[in-house]
């Protein structure tokens, strides 16, 4: 029987109190530095298997590309989708994909949380003086997220070329912040689900479900759904904030929304808030961690 144990006090190593006066800033800088060291090490390790990398990246490209071929075939027979033309859908699709890829490229190791807990790796992470979340984020040694990134950037690049948006500095800044916000929302779902790893053995299918659901429900104009379901996607499952609301703002299509248009501008903020909430849930659930007896 695994015996419950108390967590080593994470605060003991990177708490503001310890790190001095400008504590949190020092902690943040240290965390970011350690994040990069770990991240680069994982990538170096992934680069050892060259041929499969090529296929994995190609598979990532195909997986996301096929999704858009669907829209292309569709809009070949029909002019618009809920009032959105092919270019606008491409813009939305690309924006979502870039946000998705950003979260994956930065933190995809987080999806291995259940394995790490099951096999006792998490124990090691608790002992090292870096936030376990950072260690998990850099845990994955696959490069397929770069396939997603490649596809996302290509789609978004093409969309930028063919949609006529009056770019101003503010819009560009907002766009970058919205992508980060979108990535944070996707990450939040995974951190939230990941915190179940302290209670369940295997999360793979739940993670796949969440991941695919976000790509299915996040990449199309929400005008196709009933108003009630649109509310659900905005306030209950904040998928609309990942890309649909930002894209509506940038394409000046906020008049078609069932929610007030200004809400779209809040997307980056929503990303931060949702992530903070998910982090809270994660920290709270982490207390229920039980060693597997290594």
């Amino acid at each position, binding site marked *: 029987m695994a015996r419950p144990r108390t967590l080593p006090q994470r605060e003991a190593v990177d708490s503001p109190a310890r790190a001095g006066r400008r504590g949190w800033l020092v902690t943040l800088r240290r965390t970011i530095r350690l994040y990069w060291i770990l991240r680069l090490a994982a990538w170096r390790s992934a680069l050892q*298997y060259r*041929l*499969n*990398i*090529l*296929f*994995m*990246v*190609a*598979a990532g490209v*195909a*997986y996301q590309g*096929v999704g858009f*071929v*669907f829209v292309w*075939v*569709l*809009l*070949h*027979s*029909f002019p*618009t*989708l*809920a009032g959105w033309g092919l270019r606008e859908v491409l813009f939305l699709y690309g924006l979502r994909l870039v946000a998705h890829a950003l979260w994956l490229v930065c933190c995809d190791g987080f999806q291995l949380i259940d394995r790490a807990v099951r096999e006792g790796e998490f124990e090691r992470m608790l002992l090292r003086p870096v936030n376990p979340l950072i260690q998990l984020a850099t845990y994955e040694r696959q490069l*397929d997220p770069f396939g997603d990134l490649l596809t996302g950037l290509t789609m978004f690049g093409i969309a930028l070329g063919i949609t006529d948006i009056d770019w101003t500095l503010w819009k560009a800044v907002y766009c970058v912040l919205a992508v980060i916000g979108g990535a944070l929302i996707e990450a939040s779902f995974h951190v939230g689900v990941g915190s179940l790893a302290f209670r369940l053995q*295997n999360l*793979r*299918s*739940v993670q*796949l*479900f969440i991941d*695919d*659901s976000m790509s*299915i*429900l996040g990449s*199309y104009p929400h*005008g*196709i*759904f009933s108003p009630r379901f649109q509310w659900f996607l905005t306030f209950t499952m904040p998928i609309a904030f990942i890309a649909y609301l930002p894209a509506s703002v940038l394409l000046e299509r906020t008049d078609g929304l069932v929610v007030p248009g200004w809400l779209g501008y809040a997307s980056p903020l929503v990303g931060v808030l949702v992530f903070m909430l998910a982090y809270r849930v994660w920290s709270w659930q982490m207390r229920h961690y039980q060693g597997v007896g290594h």
Partner: protein
Amino acid sequence: MRTRVRRIWRGWYGYARLMFLTVLQYRVAVLSSAALSVVWILLLTRVWTAVYGERGLVEGFDLETLIVYLTLVNLQNVIMSNSVTRIITERVRVGTVLFDIARPMPLISQLIAQQAGQSVGVCGFVLLAAPFAALVGGLAPPADLGAAVTYPVALTLGWLINTLLAILVGLATFWAMEIGGFTLLYQVVAGFLSGTSVPVVFFPGVFGVIVELLPFRFTGYVPAAVYVGQIDGVAVLRTMGWAVVWIVLLGGLLALVWGRAYRKVVVQGG
């Protein structure tokens, strides 16, 4: 003769049963893939409803028929999901494929039997998901008596084509050890070309012609189109004739490739 048949049957039954039980063991994964197909049905039916608007008939589909088609084809797709590619890849990598080959039942038959067991097991979960899929999308009885009779046949033929293709993909592992990327690539492309999100008659121009010539449509589009009466009358028989031709072709190709792979195994293990 009778003991021989019995022995063969026992082999098939044994493998199928094993995979059936495996499916029950992995029920959470199967349930979640069924649930995901419901989410996908939700999106697809909304997307198609939005683009159809007030239009009546497009490419021979009215909206109501199309919704039944999309619901059905995506439920079918859960049954079609295969694990034979994964099984063969893993066993080759670890080397246990030697034991499979040493058994009196041919490896290819073992794989087909396992896939059969899995699909039957998954069927149960799909039936659980079907009411939700019907609620979110839409289901209706078969178009007519002919459709009701021919649908199971079309589905079985499609299932066999799907399984043969999956084994062919899996055999690539005899030449390259790590084919995870390749397998994923195949699944994504094959899934789309089988018509799970767009009935293949909607594919435009040259693309449409190519898809028409490939075997993937039999694994998704054809059975569902037979069910909703999109393919009917003599066309059903003609299409099934083509399906049989594909099964023979793929079977021959599989025998050829397996013959080569088999020699490869001897060299590796020798």
